C-alpha cells in the first residue's frame, strides 16, 4: 500500500463509512426490493410500471413540465445574467440584485410555492392585473393547470440559471469582445460568435441543474396542482406514505432515477458536442 493511501485512509474512513451506511446501502435496499414481488425475485414491479399507459402519461406530463420550465428559465435567465454582468455598472446595484436572487434560493420551496398559490388564485393579484389591463375578460384558472406549475417551478429554479450563466459571463475577458468589435463585428455578431460560445458550458450546467430539479420536484407541483395533475415524484410519495408498497414504490423510484440520469448524461453529451463544435468553428 502506498504512502498516499496510508495518509488518505484515516481521513476517508469516517465519511466513506457514513455514506456507505446511509446513502449507498439504502439505495441498494430500494433497488433490491424493487426486484422482489411476493417474496421472490421478479421483474414484475417494473413490468407494472412500464406496461401501464397511466405511468407513461404521468411521465410525459412530468417531462413536459420540466422541459417547458427549463426552456423558460433559459430564455428569462440568460438576458438577466447578461444584463447584471455586462450592463449594470453600479457595484451596489449589482450586489443588491445578487442578494435578491439568492434570497429565494435560501427560502423553502413550500414558502415560495405558497406565494404563488396566493398570487395565482381566482381573485389573486395576477388575475386582477390581467383583467384590469383588459388582457382577460374574466379570471383565468392557473391553479390545477400545467401552466400554473410551470410558473411556480420557473420562479423556483430561475436563480440557478442566472447564477450559472452570470458566473460564466463574468469569467469571459471583456478584451475578447472588444477585440471582436475592433475587428468590425456588429454587437450581435460579437455576441453570437464570441460571448455565447464561451458561456455555453455555464448555460449547459445551469440547464442540466434546472431540468433535474424540475423532474424531481414534489412540493411545488403538489401545492399548485390542486390535486388535478400528477407528476412522477407524487406517485413515489404515495407508494411510501399511504400504500406502503416498497416493492412497487422502489421500481417507481428507480425508474425516475434512471430516466433523470439518462437525460442528464444526454444533455452533458450534447453540451460537450455543441461546445467542441462551436470551439472548432471559432478556431
Amino acid at each position: 500500500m502506498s504512502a498516499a493511501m496510508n495518509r488518505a485512509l484515516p481521513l476517508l474512513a469516517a465519511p466513506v463509512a457514513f455514506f456507505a451506511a446511509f446513502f449507498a446501502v439504502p439505495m441498494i435496499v430500494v433497488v433490491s426490493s424493487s426486484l422482489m414481488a411476493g417474496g421472490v425475485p421478479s421483474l414484475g414491479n417494473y413490468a407494472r410500471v412500464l406496461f401501464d399507459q397511466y405511468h407513461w402519461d404521468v411521465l410525459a406530463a412530468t417531462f413536459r413540465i420540466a422541459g417547458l420550465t427549463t426552456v423558460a428559465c433559459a430564455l428569462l435567465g440568460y438576458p438577466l445574467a447578461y444584463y447584471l454582468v455586462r450592463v449594470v455598472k453600479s457595484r451596489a446595484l449589482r450586489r443588491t440584485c445578487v442578494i435578491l436572487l439568492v434570497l429565494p434560493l435560501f427560502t423553502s420551496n413550500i414558502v415560495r410555492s405558497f406565494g404563488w398559490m396566493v398570487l395565482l388564485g381566482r381573485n389573486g393579484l395576477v388575475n386582477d392585473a390581467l383583467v384590469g389591463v383588459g388582457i382577460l375578460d374574466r379570471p383565468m384558472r392557473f391553479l390545477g393547470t400545467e401552466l400554473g406549475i410551470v410558473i411556480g417551478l420557473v420562479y423556483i429554479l430561475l436563480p440557478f440559471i442566472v447564477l450559472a450563466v452570470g458566473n460564466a459571463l463574468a469569467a469571459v475577458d471583456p478584451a475578447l469582445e472588444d477585440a471582436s468589435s475592433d475587428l468590425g463585428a456588429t454587437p450581435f455578431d460579437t455576441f453570437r460568435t464570441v460571448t455565447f460560445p464561451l458561456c455555453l458550458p455555464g448555460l449547459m450546467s445551469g440547464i442540466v441543474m434546472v431540468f433535474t430539479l424540475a423532474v424531481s420536484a414534489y412540493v411545488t407541483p403538489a401545492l399548485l396542482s390542486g390535486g388535478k395533475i400528477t407528476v412522477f415524484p407524487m406517485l413515489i410519495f404515495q407508494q411510501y406514505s399511504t400504500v406502503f408498497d416498497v416493492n412497487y414504490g422502489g421500481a417507481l423510484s428507480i425508474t425516475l432515477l434512471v430516466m433523470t440520469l439518462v437525460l442528464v448524461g444526454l444533455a452533458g453529451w450534447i453540451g460537450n458536442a455543441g461546445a467542441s463544435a462551436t470551439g472548432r468553428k471559432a478556431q
Partner: protein
Amino acid sequence: MIARLLLRVVSWSVMAYLILPLLVIVGSSFTATSYLAFPPQGLTLDWYGRMLGDGSYLAAFGTSTLLALVATAAALLLGVPAALAIARCEFPGKKFLLSLLMSPLVLPHVVLGAALLQYCAALGLMRSFTALLVGHIVIIMPFVLRSVLPQLTPEQRALEEASADLGARPMETFFLVTLPQIRSGLASGAIFAFISSWINVELSIFNTTAEMTTIPVKLFNYVQYTIDPVIAAVSSITIGVAALAIIILDLTVGLHLLSDRR
C-alpha cells in the same frame, strides 16, 4: 439601442417576478383581515402573536434549528477530512468517490427520502430524529465539499509543508495553517449546508411525525388544508432567517457571485 432597451425591460420584469411572491407573503402577514389579502388591509401583528401562542410552531422551529445545526456540524466533521484526502492524496477510485459524495446534488430527494424511510424502518429508527439527521447530512455534505475543495490549492499545500518542515505536528499544522486558510470556504459551505437543511421538505417529509416535525414540513401539511395569515407570518419568519443568512454570508465571506474577482 432597441435591443438594449428590450434587455433592460426583460431583466427588470424578471427581477420583479423573483421578488413578488416573497413580497406578497411578508405583506399579507400584516393584514387585519382573517383571510390573506395583498396589499394588506389594515395593519396588525396579531398573526405573529397567534403563531407564538401555538406551541407546535415553536417546537417545529426548534426541531428545524437543532437539525440544521447538528447536520451542519456533522457535515463539516465528515466533509473537511474527505476534502483534504481528495485534494492531497492520490488513490484508486478517487474520481468515483468524489462523484459519489457529490451525487446527492442531482439525485431526486424524494427517492433518497423513500430509501431512508424503508432503511431506517428496518433498523428500528423509522420517523426518528436520527433518521432525519442522517439524510440531512448526506444531502448537505456536497455543499461543504464544493466550497472547501477549491481552496485546497498547491500554494496552500506549500505552506503546510513549510509548517511541517519547521517541526509542527500534523495537528498543529492543521489547526494553525490549514484551517485559517480555508476559513472562507468553511463559512460559505457551512451557511449553504445549514440553509439547505433548514428549508428541506422533500427529504424530511418521509421521516417526520405529527409531534416531531420541521417547520417547512409543518407548513406543507398545513397549506394543503387551509391558507390563512398565520401561515404567512410563519413563512415571513423563514424569509427573515434566509435574509439574515445572506447578510452574514455577504459580510463575512462576501457573495462574489457574478463578479470577476473570485
